[in-house]
C-alpha cells in the first residue's frame, strides 16, 4: 500500500474520493434526512464524529486483530461510537434527535464508515487515519448540507429553518424566506427529489472536473511532435 501525504488525504476526502459524490456510499441517510439544512447538519456532524472515532480506534488496534475477525471488530467499534453520538444528541439536541429518529442508529450501517475503516484506517498509523476520518466526514457533511439547502429552498421556499434545534435559541430567527407565499413543491420534499438532487450534484462535480482537466491540458506544453520520427509499420505511435 502506498502511503498518502496529508494533502492527498485532504483532497481525496473533500473532493476526489468524496463519499457521497464519488463512492456514492451512505445513500440511505443522505437521501432520507436531507429535507432541511438543519437535519443535514445534525446527521452530518454525527457521522463525522463516528467516522473520526472509528478510524482512530481501528488504526490503534490494527496490529492486534486478526484478518478473519476484523469486520465484526470494526462493526462493534463503529456501533459503540454511534451509541455515543446517539446519547450526546439525546442530551443536547433532543428535538433534532427525535426528528432524525431511526437514521441516527442507522449510521452503523453506513457503508462509507466501514469502508474507510477497512480500506484505509486498518492499514495505516493513527495520525493519517484520524485525518482521513475528518476529511471524509467533512466531505460527506458538505454534500449533505448542499443537498439539504437545495431541497429546503425548492421544496419549502425557506433556508435555515429551525436552526435553533441544533444551535440553541439564538439561531431561531436565522430562517430566510426569499419568496412570499411560496407553494410547497412536494416532489423535492419527498425522497424522489433527493435522488434527482444528488444526481444533479454528481453531474455538477463531474462537469467541474472535466472543465479543470480541459484547462490543465490547454495550459500544459504540447508533447514533442512525433512527425519527424522514422516510419513505423507495426504498433501504435502515441
Amino acid at each position: 500500500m502506498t502511503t498518502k501525504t496529508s494533502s492527498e488525504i485532504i483532497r481525496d476526502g473533500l473532493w476526489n474520493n468524496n463519499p457521497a459524490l464519488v463512492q456514492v456510499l451512505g445513500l440511505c441517510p443522505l437521501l432520507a434526512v436531507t429535507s432541511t439544512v438543519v437535519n443535514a447538519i445534525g446527521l452530518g456532524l454525527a457521522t463525522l464524529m463516528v467516522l473520526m472515532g472509528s478510524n482512530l480506534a481501528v488504526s490503534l488496534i490494527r496490529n492486534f486483530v486478526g484478518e478473519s475477525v476484523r469486520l465484526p471488530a470494526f462493526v462493534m467499534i463503529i456501533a459503540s461510537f454511534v451509541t455515543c453520538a446517539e446519547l450526546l444528541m439525546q442530551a443536547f439536541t433532543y428535538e433534532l434527535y427525535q426528528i432524525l429518529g431511526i437514521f441516527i442508529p442507522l449510521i452503523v450501517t453506513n457503508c462509507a464508515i466501514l469502508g474507510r475503516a477497512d480500506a484505509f484506517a486498518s492499514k495505516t498509523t493513527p495520525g493519517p487515519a484520524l485525518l482521513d476520518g475528518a476529511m471524509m466526514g467533512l466531505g460527506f457533511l458538505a454534500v449533505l448540507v448542499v443537498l439539504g439547502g437545495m431541497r429546503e429552498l425548492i421544496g419549502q421556499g425557506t433556508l435555515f429553518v429551525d436552526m435553533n434545534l441544533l444551535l440553541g435559541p439564538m439561531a431561531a430567527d436565522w430562517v430566510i424566506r426569499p419568496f412570499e407565499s411560496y407553494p410547497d413543491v412536494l416532489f423535492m420534499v419527498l425522497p424522489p427529489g433527493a435522488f434527482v438532487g444528488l444526481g444533479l450534484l454528481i453531474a455538477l462535480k463531474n462537469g467541474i472536473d472535466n472543465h479543470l482537466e480541459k484547462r490543465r491540458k490547454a495550459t500544459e506544453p504540447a508533447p514533442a511532435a512525433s512527425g519527424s520520427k522514422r516510419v513505423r509499420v507495426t504498433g501504435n505511435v502515441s
Partner: protein
Amino acid sequence: MAFAQQSSPHAHHARPTSRVMLWVIIAALPGLFAQTVFFGWGNLINVVWCVALAMACEAAILKLRNKPIGFFLKDNTAAVTGLLLGLSLPQFAPWWVSGIAVVSAIVVAKQLYGGLGSNPFNPAMVGYALVLISFPVAMTTNWAEPALLWKGAPGFSETLSTIASAKQTAVDGWTMATPLDEYKHKIANRTAAEVLQHPTFGNGIARGWEWVNAGFLAGGLLLVLLRIITWHIPVGFLAGLAAMSLAFGSNADQYAPLSMHLLAGGTMLGAFFIATDPVSAATSHQGKLIYGAGIGVLIYLIRTWGSYPDAVAFSVLLMNFAVPFIDHYTPPRTYGHHKARRGVPSRKQG
C-alpha cells in the same frame, strides 16, 4: 429522423418522424375542439403555452448539447409532448404549474436521458406525474365545470388572467372535481341514482367528458387507419380496463360503472395518444398487447383504490418500467429463422 435505408420490415416509403408527429397533432384536434367547446378556453391556452415552452426548452438544451437545433426541432416531437401536456393538465392550472411540467418533461425526462429515442419514460407523463405529486391542490381543484353548467362562463381574457396569475386555485364557481373523483367520493354513502343526480354526470356518464373522449377516440382511429399506430396498445389498454371493471366493479352502488371509466376521464387520450409513444412502449405486437393491458389494469386499480382522481400518468410510467422485461420475453420470430428464444435461456438448452 428519416432513415434513408430500411432494413426489414421493408416499408413502402420512409415516413419521416416530423410527418408522423404532424399527424398526431392533427388527430388530437377533434378532442381539443371538444374540450374548448365544453370546458372553455383553458385547454387551448394551455396547449399554446406548453407547445411554445416545449420548443424553447428543446432548442435551449440542443444548443447546450451542441446538436443541430433546426434538424431536431423540425421533427415535431417536442411539440407533441407540449400538446399532450396541454391536453391533459387541468383547464385552470396556473402557468407555472404547466411550465414546471413542460420543463421537467423536455429537459429531464427527454434530453438528459439522451434525447429523442433514448428516453425510457414517456416525457409528457413524467412532467404530469411530477406536478401532480408536487402540487396536489393546483392539480385536483382546477378542472373546469362543463360550460353548459355555467351561468356565466369565463371568457377568453378571464381564463387567460386566471391561468397567468400566481395563485394556486381559480375562482371557486368555475371549477369542480373531475366526475370520476366526484363519483368515487360521493358513492361511499349514497346510491348510484342519488350520485348521478348531480348535473356534472349529464345523462348518466359525464357531461362534456363523453364528447372529449369521443373526439380523442375518433382521432385515435384515424391514427390507426393511417398506420401511424397499431391497434395493439389501445385494444389491450381498453380491454384491460374493461375486464377489471366487469370483474370487480359491476355494482354501480359501490364503484364507478364501466361507461364512466371509458368516457369520463383521460382514458381515450391515454389509450390512443399517450400509451402509444413509440419510444417508451413495448416493441413487438404481442408485447404491445401485454403493455397496453397492464396499463388498463393499473388504471382501474389506481382509480378505484388509490387516492388520485385519474391514473393514466402513473400507469403509463409503471408500465414503462416493465417494457425491457416485456421486450425480453416477446421477441417475434424472424422470417426464415427458428422460433425466437424468449427470456433467459434455460439450463437444459445448455
